């Protein structure tokens, strides 16, 4: 390729360009790209006692992380959580969005209510739900006259935590769906109405295919969000909870090792496993995108 000589104007533009991106690029390198390599490096190290620095241990961390039952259990727990949060969060939000996109009175009030959990700190939300789930004094058991250990029975605790997740994300998904719905031209529905298509027919034949790019985007972001869930789990599941092992997510496990136990090397290794897992999921999603999303 022939190297072109830059004009004075192009040179000036290049100077401004680099000046403007410099803070961001420096920040990204120091705060994000260096940490990626540093985390990989640390996963091969044992954290020295009393801050004595790192000791290179090769694949020892990987051997113990991959041999530990709790790693696989927490990965499995995370998938179970995602299996509740993502489909229910998406389907309920879609139905609500379709309703709120009709010409109904009072849609703003409903929208405000559904979106409310989105502006609340998950720490507070989880505290409230933990209280609702309280086996002895909680609202649910006392109103329904049951005696269910909502968050300490390993068989149902994962569902209970998943429900909090669904409750928390519905409004967010709904807002994204509404803005996607508003991009579908109204004439499609008019034409379908003239042809005598019912609302349900229209939903499956017009809304679902035309909304599929939005749906795919939401599913993908929510899936990654669900696979990295931490706040809800941390606040709801005490260290003493007997169901902890069967519910805790992989990020919770990471937090416990890296920051509660101070074993940074082991924690770093868990993160690498998590990232590898998410990369596989993302790759599968990208493959699926071609067949699942309707391209006009």
């Amino acid at each position: 390729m022939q190297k072109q000589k830059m004009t004075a104007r192009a040179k000036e533009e290049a100077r401004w360009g680099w000046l403007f991106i410099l803070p961001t690029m420096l920040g990204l390198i120091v705060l994000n790209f260096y940490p990626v390599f540093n985390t990989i490096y640390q996963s091969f190290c044992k954290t020295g006692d009393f801050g004595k620095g790192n000791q290179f241990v090769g694949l020892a961390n990987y051997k113990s992380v991959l041999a530990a039952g709790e790693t696989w259990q927490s990965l499995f727990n995370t998938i179970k959580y995602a299996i509740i949060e993502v489909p229910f969060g998406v389907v309920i939000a879609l139905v609500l969005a379709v309703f709120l996109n009709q010409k109904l009175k009072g849609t703003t009030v409903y929208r405000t209510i559904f979106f409310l959990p989105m502006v609340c700190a998950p720490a507070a939300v989880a505290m409230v739900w933990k209280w609702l789930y309280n086996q002895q004094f909680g609202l649910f058991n006392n109103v329904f006259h049951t005696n269910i250990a909502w968050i300490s029975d390993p068989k149902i605790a994962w569902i209970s935590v998943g429900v909090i997740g669904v409750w928390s994300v519905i409004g967010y998904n709904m807002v994204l769906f509404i803005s996607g719905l508003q991009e579908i031209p109204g004439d499609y529905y008019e034409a379908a109405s003239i042809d005598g298509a019912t609302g349900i027919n229209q939903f499956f034949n017009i809304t679902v295919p035309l909304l599929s790019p939005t749906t795919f985007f939401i599913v993908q972001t929510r899936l990654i969000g669900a696979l990295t869930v931490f706040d809800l789990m941390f606040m709801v599941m005490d260290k003493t909870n007997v169901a902890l092992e069967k519910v805790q997510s992989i990020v919770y496990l990471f937090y416990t090792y890296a920051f509660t136990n101070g074993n940074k090397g082991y924690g770093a290794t868990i993160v690498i496993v998590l990232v590898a897992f998410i990369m596989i999921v993302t790759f599968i999603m990208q493959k699926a995108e071609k067949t699942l999303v309707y391209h006009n």
Partner: protein
Amino acid sequence: MDIQTRDRLNKVIMYVILTIMAFIMLVPFVWMILTAVKTNQEAISVAPFYIFPQSGWHWENFATVWKSYNFLILYKNTLLMIFFRVVCACLTATMAGYAFGRLHFPGKNLMFSLVLIQMMIPSQIFIIPQYLMVSKLGLLNTTAGLVFPGIVTAFGTYLLKTGYEGLPMDLEEAAGLDGCNIGQKFLKIMMPLTRSSMVSLGIFTALFAFKDLMWPMIVCTNSATTTLSAGLAKMQGQYGSDYPAMMASAVLAVIPMIVIYMVFQKQFVEGIATSGGKL
């Protein structure tokens, strides 16, 4: 059934479903407030079980937790963290977004691909080294430490780049003829026009910072330096069985953002819809 009756029936069904869902969404909020104004005896009474407080509404519970858990400090810490994160994110992202969206310079595509790559990496991989850096810089238990990972934003850069690209091309050319240099064009003409993208980014950044739990828990272990979220986690660990106090604290922690949301509802909803970021 004629079309009118069918439409009316559809509407009724929709209202019923929407109302049931709205009720389910509100139950935790209502229960949080009802518990917050009870005495602890009322809160843990099961036979009889009380929905409403029996000995009057104890609004003083809020004043009690406000003082005993030092909410003023938690509010201040949270507010400062949000303020600096929003300012830093908007400032760096608008500059970089402008350069990526409107200027031509060698290395631009390579640099922008780094921005895109960062957006695809799960943020958990950054945390240990970021913590070690904050610790080495002596910024543990400081506002600067809380702000640290949010000084720059790849997502915001991407968002603002899209904003700048959407502006008409001739605006800048007309300004160029008047003898403005690129910096002046950016400040006087281009930046003000991307106000809505900036608002989206500001709301997104503020919400993200407000909701974040792990980072403040790691870098601010001292309850005098930490944020509302991490403060709640600490309280639950220490006084988890005083239920009215816990619920009053939860109310105090969520109220500011709810009020802001009610006031700027349009901006919030549009901001989330247009940014579509991962919260």
